[in-house]
């Protein structure tokens, strides 16, 4: 059976169990009546994941609850200097609770993206949980080269460059226009060790091998439901379609990963299907890759039990960030290591 068929079958069975529960369906219908942007399938899944009270808490979290954050570009400045410069312009900042080079914008006289400091590349705007994926990868320890699959406009790519200025960073995306934005961001932030390729990351193995790979997979964006842009209806089919692509990307990335290498799989989604299930699947089908502890002290542990899906016990090592619990955008980070000696 192909992997795509396997995913389809397993998810279909899981969802069948879900819609068989009349109690859950009734609760879900109440939620969808209250939140017009919410699909019945989406409501069912989160009722199962979080329970009625917490699911409601998540869906009703206002966007102001999420920290507005910037990432200091440590190549050009430091947190103290930047805070001082922005303070003089009327911005009120405090330290990011989870990462040393992050700052939370508490007050802004005008848009934080319109300052001279931003144009000079001293910082960039990045979500508070999204900032945590790159340090987990430990790019500064790379001895070979680093890949950023699905790099987009390069926010995490420039963060990789902050951690390692010497090794080549290959940034890949199918969207040419986003890569032009990446080029501009790299120029603005003086990240000069990045090569951006317009290609499909499922062919990354053609480029050689890497000891550090970041897969910031395209996802349903369920972690962004607190914002207007994240409020749209997501059915079971929407999720299943993304899971298949995510698995293909992850498989290609693992193939290109060197023995002993680290791979971070991250999404701005809270769905177990798109995160713990995908990384568990690769460890089921391959013997040379395992889920390991991210080392993050913040966030909530990954979910190892959900809808009877085959999920590894090690999925608990993943870290989840919830808007209502952690004041971040919804985000999930998993760390994998390829077995074998580093060579």
């Amino acid at each position: 059976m192909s992997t795509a068929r396997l995913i389809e079958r397993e998810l279909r069975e899981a969802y069948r169990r879900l819609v068989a529960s009349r109690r859950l369906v009734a609760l879900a219908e109440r939620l969808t009546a209250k939140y017009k942007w919410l699909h019945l399938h989406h409501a069912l899944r989160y009722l199962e994941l979080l329970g009625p009270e917490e699911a409601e808490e998540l869906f009703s979290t206002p966007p102001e609850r999420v920290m507005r954050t910037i990432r200091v570009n440590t190549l050009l400045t430091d947190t103290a200097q930047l805070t001082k410069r922005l303070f003089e312009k009327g911005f009120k900042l405090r330290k990011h609770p989870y990462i040393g080079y992050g700052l939370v914008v508490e007050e802004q006289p005008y848009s934080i993206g319109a300052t001279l400091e931003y144009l000079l590349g001293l910082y960039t705007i990045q979500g508070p949980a999204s900032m945590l994926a790159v340090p987990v990868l430990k790019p500064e320890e790379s001895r070979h080269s680093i890949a950023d699959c699905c790099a987009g406009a390069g926010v995490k790519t420039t963060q990789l460059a902050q951690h390692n200025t010497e090794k080549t960073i290959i940034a890949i995306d199918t969207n040419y226009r986003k890569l032009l934005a990446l080029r501009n961001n790299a120029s603005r932030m003086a990240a000069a060790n990045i090569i951006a390729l317009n290609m499909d990351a499922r062919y990354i193995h053609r480029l050689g091998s890497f000891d550090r790979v970041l897969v910031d997979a395209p996802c349903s964006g369920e972690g962004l439901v607190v914002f207007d842009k994240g409020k749209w209806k997501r059915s079971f089919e929407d999720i299943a379609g993304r899971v298949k692509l995510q698995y293909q990307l992850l498989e290609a990335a693992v193939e290109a990963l060197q023995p002993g290498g680290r791979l971070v799989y991250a999404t701005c989604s809270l769905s177990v299907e798109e995160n713990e299930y995908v990384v568990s699947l690769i460890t089921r089908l391959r013997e040379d890759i395992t889920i390991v502890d991210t080392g993050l002290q913040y966030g909530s542990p990954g979910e190892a039990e959900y809808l009877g899906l085959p999920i590894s016990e090690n999925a608990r090592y993943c870290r989840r960030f919830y808007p209502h619990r952690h004041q971040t955008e919804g985000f999930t980070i998993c760390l994998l290591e390829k077995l074998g000696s580093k060579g």
Partner: protein
Amino acid sequence: MPTGEAREQRIAVCDRKTVEAVMRIAACYSAQLARRLGRVRLYCSSKARRVVYAFTGDRVHPRIATYRVVCAGIPVAVVSNKSLRPALGMLSLARLWRVQVESHYVRVKSSASLLFTYGRDIFVDSVEAIEIRYECNNIPLAVIDSNGDLLGFGLLSGRGKRVLIQNLLDVGWYLRSGV
């Protein structure tokens, strides 16, 4: 979905003539900047509008260079109207390497520097200091604000009372570029 392979190479190591031209531009602003640039690899795009990239990573594997490369490092110069002009990336590298621009610059007052980053020109009464290297007369001046921040490039234009620094390129372009 693109597999990325191009029929011809998209980037290549720049030829000696281009490298020397870029170094000459950098030397107008700072000898140290030129020396540092001399130690990194310069790659040129093979498209009609040539862009020169400064790349500080490991060597680019020849196979990668055959793919559709959008950038290999950061743009430090661009061929414009058949001549080579500095790009904003050159200023970014000066910031990265903590290099001071020592010559061929104009320093402007605060109010004018803000307008400059909106794409406006600078009038002579907004100039705090100017230093021109006459051997670099075809090279744009670096524009600096009173804090020493590098804002972009300008061309000395006009004569008498109508002298101004014409905005050639400023850091506000990063927001205005539309990408």
